[in-house]
């Protein structure tokens, strides 16, 4: 058991690297796909135009909750230019991203659950014609009672939005106990109980979702789509269309931004696939911006209660976290999201006893799902603000408190997460230094303040979404006698630079440049499976697979060149497009010649690589969410100015340190950090996916308050503060060249750091996001009136929690299993998998 009161120096893991010979890794470079992007040649899904292509539009429900009594599409079908009208009976098989939540239909058969749920599809020669024909479809609805938020869901078990889930309109409840928290609270000198609310928000990728499907010349299905997860779309299509996956090709086109919003298999993708197969012509759909808002799958609104016991020195003795989650109308990733609202609380600070309870409710709003930081963002907001309150009460500096309680490298946490390198302390020290924290905190004039917060994030989900024993990532490498190298991999380029990661790793190993490499990714026909661009998994998982394939190719070339030059294999080096004797560098062959020698010796030169994450010790039910090969860490300081009269907030500067393990391409790594900070700042200050009820005379529907880019406020170039980025590079043995994630983690500390800075500036707590001037003014009024100087929720509703699963932590002799769990046999589990 690590002793949290000590502050051991960050353990430096020695990686077996000859750093002096890295020529690609760690060098800021133009990414491999940059030229295509700056010349407008990147082909996104909507840029595909094919001969005879027809256009699809979806008729969407205007009601948040209703039974479909009758659909008559005869008038639409008779409209000139209309080829096809599809309804729910054409695609009745249910699907969904998570095996236990197969609750969506591509077109609703008899039940609509949110405004925007699709009920029919029109395919026509022109997009405008399809749009006109939507008005000619007659649908009769029986309006049902709607549920607008989780508290209403708890109070309204009937009518049920779904006929599965725990009971009533509760989708999922979790109750996990890692040690006895009451004992922890009994040991505590101070106990803190705080309530927080995190409003939902959405991804807002600038590219609207689009798909084009064809029946290919052989009669099989091909679909190009703006998806982050071509493999999961592949599976959903096979299921709903009742086709062999071998006859379906999914091509994930480069995404014009994803952020998690293109990770579910979508109804529109299934609809155009079906239509293309029926019509034997290409069918395209492009969603409008309003439709993208209603597709959503974004950040869950979460109400939280944190009860934390601490010793006078800051040591945490126990933590009890409760989360109430607004799931929207479908399961989506929700089961995973629910576990994620409590999974990572133990990864940054040592928590010896931890009790986590979560409840996700169905509501009649667009489904929530994974957005950058998936489910961990909301509780991180609460935890880091509560730490700020704890530090103040204990008269400790917030940075010092965190340095004291930071978790140790390679620790196993109370909930059995195995950590890798932990650069948290180094991140804190660096950000304190570069921000001049010690000269600013509680020392700036009224109206100006600084706030600090930290975070941790997964470097890839340790378990796949559906149970299987196969690798999470595969790479095939082809070397041709022209000296060319081609990478085939299912990884999906969503802007994060995954193609560049693959190219950089292979180029480094084989001693060439990234320009010497061709890359085919995101295509289920061409490349081996990669599970997708989610959970910050690609750099580590696809990267390790690429590394293995490249090392295997290198071994073949080494043997062939060694034999030709009569040089011992261990003396050969690969660099600058040559293979040469390290003892006599002029003695060597070109890379091109090396490939020819290998082909002559072995035949066609091709290799494969794959990656499967290590098995997690968390073997209790629900332990599948949270494990990762290793975790990234971040610490941020935000400076704000707050007008004490208007509440107007300005953020002039942000400092952030991120423990990335190693930056494969520092230019892109910095871009990921800055982009995360930007998105976090949007969530902190303005972004919200909010719904309102139309008046009773106008159907009383729950509609999106502002389904447009103009009204859904996000930061512009004028809103961006100066950002100072420090990359903490402490190579992690799990990552390729030591790399950990960078795409999501740096978002997490921003929102709580803003909240803590507001408190430093004007002495009021805004315990919810977005932190708006209006809320600050209200909190200031409370302060002036002598009441608690805060704005935020004040209670957590009663939830009928199930019996907790009791999992003794490692230091209490636990083995990662619950002592009171009835375990399914492996044959039962396999049967379940086959059914889904």
């Amino acid at each position, binding site marked *: 058991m690590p002793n949290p009161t000590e502050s051991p120096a960050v353990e430096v893991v020695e990686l077996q690297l000859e750093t002096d010979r890295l020529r690609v890794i760690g060098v800021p470079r133009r990414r491999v796909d*940059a030229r295509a992007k*700056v010349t*407008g040649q990147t082909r996104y899904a909507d840029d595909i135009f094919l001969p005879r292509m027809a256009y699809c539009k979806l008729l969407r429900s205007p009601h948040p909750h209703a039974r479909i009594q009758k659909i008559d599409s005869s008038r639409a079908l008779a409209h*000139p*230019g209309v080829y096809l009208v599809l309804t729910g009976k054409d695609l009745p098989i249910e699907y969904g991203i998570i095996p236990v939540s197969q609750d969506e239909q591509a077109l609703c058969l008899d039940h609509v659950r949110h405004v925007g749920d699709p009920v029919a599809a029109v395919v026509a020669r022109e997009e405008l014609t399809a749009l006109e024909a939507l008005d000619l479809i007659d649908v009769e609805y029986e309006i049902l009672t709607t549920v607008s938020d989780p508290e209403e869901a708890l109070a309204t078990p009937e009518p049920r939005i779904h006929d599965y889930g725990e009971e009533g309109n509760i989708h999922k409840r979790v109750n996990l106990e890692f040690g006895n928290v009451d004992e922890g609270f009994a040991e505590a000198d101070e106990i803190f109980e705080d309530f927080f609310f995190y409003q939902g928000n959405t991804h807002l990728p600038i590219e*609207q979702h689009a798909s084009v499907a064809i029946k290919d010349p052989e009669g099989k299905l091909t679909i190009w789509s703006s998806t982050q997860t071509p493999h999961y779309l592949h599976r959903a299509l096979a299921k709903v269309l009742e086709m062999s996956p071998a006859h379906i090709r999914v091509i994930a086109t480069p995404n014009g931004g994803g952020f998690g919003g293109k990770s579910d298999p979508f109804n529109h993708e299934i609809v155009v696939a079906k239509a293309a197969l029926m019509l034997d012509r290409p069918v395209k759909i492009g969603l409008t911006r309003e439709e993208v808002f209603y597709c959503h799958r974004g950040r869950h609104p979460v109400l939280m209660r944190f009860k934390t016991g601490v010793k006078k020195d800051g040591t945490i003795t126990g933590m009890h976290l409760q989360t109430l989650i607004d799931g929207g109308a479908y399961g989506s990733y929700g089961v995973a999201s629910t576990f994620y609202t409590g999974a990572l609380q133990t990864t940054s600070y040592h928590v010896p006893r931890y009790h986590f309870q979560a409840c996700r409710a169905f509501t009649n709003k667009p489904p929530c799902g994974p957005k950058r930081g998936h489910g961990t963002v909301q509780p991180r907001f609460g935890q880091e603000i509560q730490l700020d309150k704890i530090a103040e009460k204990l008269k400790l500096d917030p940075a010092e408190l965190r340095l004291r309680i930071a978790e140790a490298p390679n620790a196993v946490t109370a909930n059995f997460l195995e950590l890798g390198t932990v650069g948290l302390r180094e991140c804190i020290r660096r950000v304190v230094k570069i921000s001049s924290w010690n000269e600013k905190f509680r020392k700036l004039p009224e109206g100006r303040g600084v706030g600090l917060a930290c975070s941790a994030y997964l470097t890839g989900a340790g378990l796949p979404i559906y149970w299987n024993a196969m690798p999470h990532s595969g790479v095939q490498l082809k070397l041709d006698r022209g000296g060319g190298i081609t990478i085939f991999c299912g990884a999906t380029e969503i*802007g994060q630079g995954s193609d560049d990661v693959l190219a950089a790793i292979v180029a480094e190993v084989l001693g060439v440049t990234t320009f010497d490499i061709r890359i085919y990714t995101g295509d289920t026909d061409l490349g081996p499976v990669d599970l997708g661009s989610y959970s910050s998994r690609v750099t580590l998982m696809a990267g390790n697979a690429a590394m293995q394939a490249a090392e295997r190719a290198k071994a073949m070339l080494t043997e062939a060149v060694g034999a030709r030059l009569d040089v011992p294999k261990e003396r050969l080096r690969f660099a600058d497009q040559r293979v040469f004797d390290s003892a006599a560098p002029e003695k060597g062959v070109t890379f091109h010649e090396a490939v020819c020698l290998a082909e002559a010796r072995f035949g066609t030169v091709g290799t494969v690589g794959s990656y499967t994450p290590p098995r997690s010790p968390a073997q209790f039910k629900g332990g599948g969410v949270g494990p990762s090969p290793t975790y990234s860490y971040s610490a941020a300081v935000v400076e704000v100015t707050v007008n004490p009269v208007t509440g107007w907030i300005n953020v002039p500067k942000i400092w952030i340190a991120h423990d990335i393990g190693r930056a494969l391409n520092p230019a892109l790594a910095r871009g990921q950090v800055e982009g995360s900070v930007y998105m976090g700042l949007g969530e902190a200050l303005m972004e919200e996916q909010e719904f309102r009820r139309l008046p009773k005379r106008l159907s009383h529907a729950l509609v999106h308050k502002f389904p447009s880019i103009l009204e859904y406020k996000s930061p512009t*170039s004028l809103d961006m503060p100066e950002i100072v980025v420090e990359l903490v590079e402490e190579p992690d043995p799990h990552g390729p060249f030591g790399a950990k994630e960078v795409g999501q983690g740096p978002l997490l500390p921003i929102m709580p750091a803003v909240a803590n800075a507001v408190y430093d500036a004007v002495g009021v707590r805004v315990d919810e996001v977005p932190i708006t001037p209006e809320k600050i003014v209200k909190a200031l009024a409370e302060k002036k009136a002598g009441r608690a100087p805060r704005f935020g929720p004040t209670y957590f509703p009663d939830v009928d929690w199930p019996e907790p699963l009791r999992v003794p932590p490692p230091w209490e002799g636990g083995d990662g299993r619950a002592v009171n769990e009835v375990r399914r046999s492996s044959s039962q589990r396999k049967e379940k998998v086959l059914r889904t």
Partner: protein
Amino acid sequence: MATAPAESQKTARIKITLNGEETDVSFAPYKTLLEVLREDLGHTGTKHGCELGECGACAVLLDGKPVLSCLLLAWECDGCSITTIEGLGSNGRLHPLQSAFANLGAAQCGYCTPGILLTAKALLDENPHPSRDQIREALSGNLCRCTGYLQIFEAVEAAMVQIAEWKKPGA
């Protein structure tokens, strides 16, 4: 199945100079410049994110000025000169803005990039030495969800230096 309009709808016709090339195009009269560029002229480098003039992804240059092509009917552009991303480089070489964006990480997903590059070109054409605040102001109508804008500002500044080098006498 009923017969459809399609080709017969192409009743509007304009002549424009597209990326320096005389271009004659027929199209359905309700179409925006954005739609005609992408659908009737095959210039898919121009993107769209809202079709309501909110995101800036569809920005092109109309007689050298940045406009949102989703807010213009194509027939309004008769006789105009239009520059799209396909026409930003010349003689097989990238424009300094394109090189700088590529080298400095200013394009992540790349979807907002064409609109931002053209807006930045219009800025540098008018003001060869903009301050950081002037760059911010000029790009404030172009949303980018990936970068946080900072690498974009840096790329515009790097291109500004590069262009100034080119313009030096004897360069």
